[in-house]
């Protein structure tokens, strides 16, 4: 039980459409780690019987809404949970078709790791490239390429090696350093949880072992200190009459009492008096901890401000270059002002320039006929009504990301990664 308390959390995303075995793979992971309960399995068996299927269709476990089960497709992101004695896992399970790019990006935004599936019979396909490109765009640190349906090609090593080589020649253009390849059969369970007896030529780890042992400690930025203030805590009651603390979640770096800090955008400097939590004060705090920071001086600090180390500050600017994914059915209007949310701060923004549209299947940059619509990814320049405190997304996923909100419908219409 103590072992359980020491577990880490790994978030991974998968994308896929109907026939590539994604649901079967998730079903297999859940089933072989004993994460499926008997009553859930009974329900799947009943549904499978109703549909006239001979055996339980594990993919039925992963579709949540009535409409999805009726149509046999994944529409929205669904989250699945399972645990082994080593780690707890959160799967963001997303559709894989181009028309659901926005859902893939949503699922990828919080992931430490992406699983990309390749059908061993068909090799690297357009959709394989799209999923890898999205993983790269969202800066997912680890990519696991599962070459699936090995059972249908007699578990031949040359087929696996050829696909691996093809993928590597394409992925050299991507911004992902940790890529691994695993030959599997989700249907039969080869190399998913248990080692395959049919592929003695494969000397690497199983998928689950890989997921359990990926090094994720360095996925957060522990260098550049960033503390976006969420709210101010003032108890106004005994014995805390003089208590004034800044609540927030550390976005980067390590903060310690005694550190000299600068409050941005005001530029006031002060020193950290203490880092408070309900369980007592801390001697240091790092991402992604939620804490309350007290300063030695009574300076003006409120929501949207950021505490940083004086010698390491983010950029302060009103012209922001981003890779943007448009999420809304209504296309962006060149004159429209949008609400921009960045960490805990808010402003208005217009899309000032569209530099190019990115083809997420090929990485091709299209500079003509720039009509951005839902699911399109484009490089754009934003102009904001006030300066934002930004870092490059590749340096910090929290201080490097923004969303745009439509002023009248209040819909979240775009997601952006700062360049």
């Amino acid at each position: 039980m103590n072992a359980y308390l020491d577990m880490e959390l790994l978030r991974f995303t998968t994308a896929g459409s109907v026939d590539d075995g994604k649901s079967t793979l998730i079903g297999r992971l859940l089933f072989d780690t004993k994460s499926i309960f008997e009553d859930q399995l009974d329900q799947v068996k009943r549904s499978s019987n109703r549909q006239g299927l001979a055996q339980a269709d594990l993919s039925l476990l992963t579709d949540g809404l009535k409409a999805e089960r009726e149509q046999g497709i994944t529409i929205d992101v669904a989250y699945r949970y399972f645990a082994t004695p080593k780690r707890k896992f959160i799967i963001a399970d997303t559709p894989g078709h181009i028309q659901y790019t926005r859902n893939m990006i949503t699922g990828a935004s919080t992931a430490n790791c992406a699983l990309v599936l390749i059908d061993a019979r068909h090799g690297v396909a357009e959709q394989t490239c799209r999923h890898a490109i999205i993983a790269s765009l969202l800066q997912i640190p680890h990519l696991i390429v599962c070459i699936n349906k090995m059972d249908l090609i007699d578990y031949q090593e040359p087929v696996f090696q050829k696909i691996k080589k093809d993928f590597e020649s394409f992925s050299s253009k991507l911004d992902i350093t940790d890529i691994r390849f695993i030959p599997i059969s989700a249907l039969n369970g080869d190399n998913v949880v248990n080692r395959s007896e049919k592929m003695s030529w494969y000397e690497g780890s199983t998928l689950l072992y890989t997921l359990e042992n990926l090094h994720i400690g360095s996925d957060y930025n522990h260098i550049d200190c960033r503390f976006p203030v969420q709210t101010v805590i003032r108890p106004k009651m005994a014995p805390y009459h003089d208590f004034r603390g800044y609540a927030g979640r550390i976005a980067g770096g390590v903060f310690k009492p005694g550190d000299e800090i600068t409050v941005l955008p005001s530029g006031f400097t002060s020193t950290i008096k203490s880092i408070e939590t309900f369980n007592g004060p801390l001697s240091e705090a790092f991402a992604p901890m939620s804490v309350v920071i007290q300063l030695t001086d009574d300076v003006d600090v409120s929501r949207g401000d950021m505490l940083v180390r004086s010698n390491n500050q983010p950029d302060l600017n009103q012209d922001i270059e981003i890779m943007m994914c448009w999420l809304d059915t209504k296309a962006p209007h060149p004159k429209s002002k949008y609400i921009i949310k960045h960490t805990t701060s808010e402003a208005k923004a217009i899309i000032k320039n569209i530099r190019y549209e990115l083809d997420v299947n090929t990485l091709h940059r299209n500079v003509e006929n720039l009509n951005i619509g839902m699911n399109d990814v484009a490089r754009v320049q934003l102009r904001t009504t006030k300066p934002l405190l930004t870092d490059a997304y590749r340096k910090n996923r929290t201080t490097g990301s923004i969303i745009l909100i439509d002023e009248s419908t209040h819909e979240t219409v775009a997601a952006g990664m700062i360049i």
Partner: protein
Amino acid sequence: MSNYNLTHLDELESESIFILREVFAQFENPCILFSGGKDSIVVTHLTKKAFYPAKIPFPLVHIDTGHNFPETMIFRDQIVADLDVRLIVGLVQDSIHSGRSTEERGKNASRNVLQTNTLLDTIDLHQFDACVGGARRDEEKARAKERFFSHRDEFGQWDPKNQRPELWNMFNGKHDHGEHFRVFPLSNWTEMDVWQYILAENIQIPSLYFAHQREVIRRNDTWLPVSEHIHLNETETPIHKKIRFRTLGDITITGGDESDADTLEKIVDEVAAARQTERGNRADDKRSETSMEDRKKQGYF
């Protein structure tokens, strides 16, 4: 470089606290939907931690069907007194009196569905713009599709096919007057995480969760507690069993399991070995394959 890793419980706690503070910052009039069950107790505990050393800045709202376990009510009043928070009670009985809701009839009648009207009326009466609840995505397949910040239109309805994308840790709580949000800080927690956390933090929970002797009947493959609200038919004979409840809802629909787990440590071991989901004993989920999705669309918890 030293090891800057959080355990999964620390990371989940940090995420939940961040969300609770966003609720405070983004909304004018939030509340916590408090049922007296373990999940809403954990949400309340996390809220206490999020705003420490200040008091919990939200009232607790209890939608009271009148079909409660007496132990739950005692527990509710104790926690309200301990935390010095405001309690708002919406009575399903009042909705029935006023003609807004109609009592179900038949053997398996319950007031579970009737809670929706009372909940929506209470939200409207107090003009809540955010209601924090303890629902988790691992509980049920419709809940697996929920956002942390889940929009409800002016009729309190959920539109699962048209939800706002939720990226990174950015939560969009913008809404028109009369609309509200349901917020689920425990979205990423599993039943096991909740129990581990209750153990690690030594959080007080109602005695019903621990194994105890109780008068029960066998109905729909579960041990249903005998109470004034349940109608026994001729074949049903009450007997005494040592049971515990894995979830708590109304006394009319919450079945127990035979168990000897009378400490938190034993409960954790039992949950780890469980082969049935925790909602398997809840008659409200068994009405149809989509009963949770259907109720949620209408405005249910």
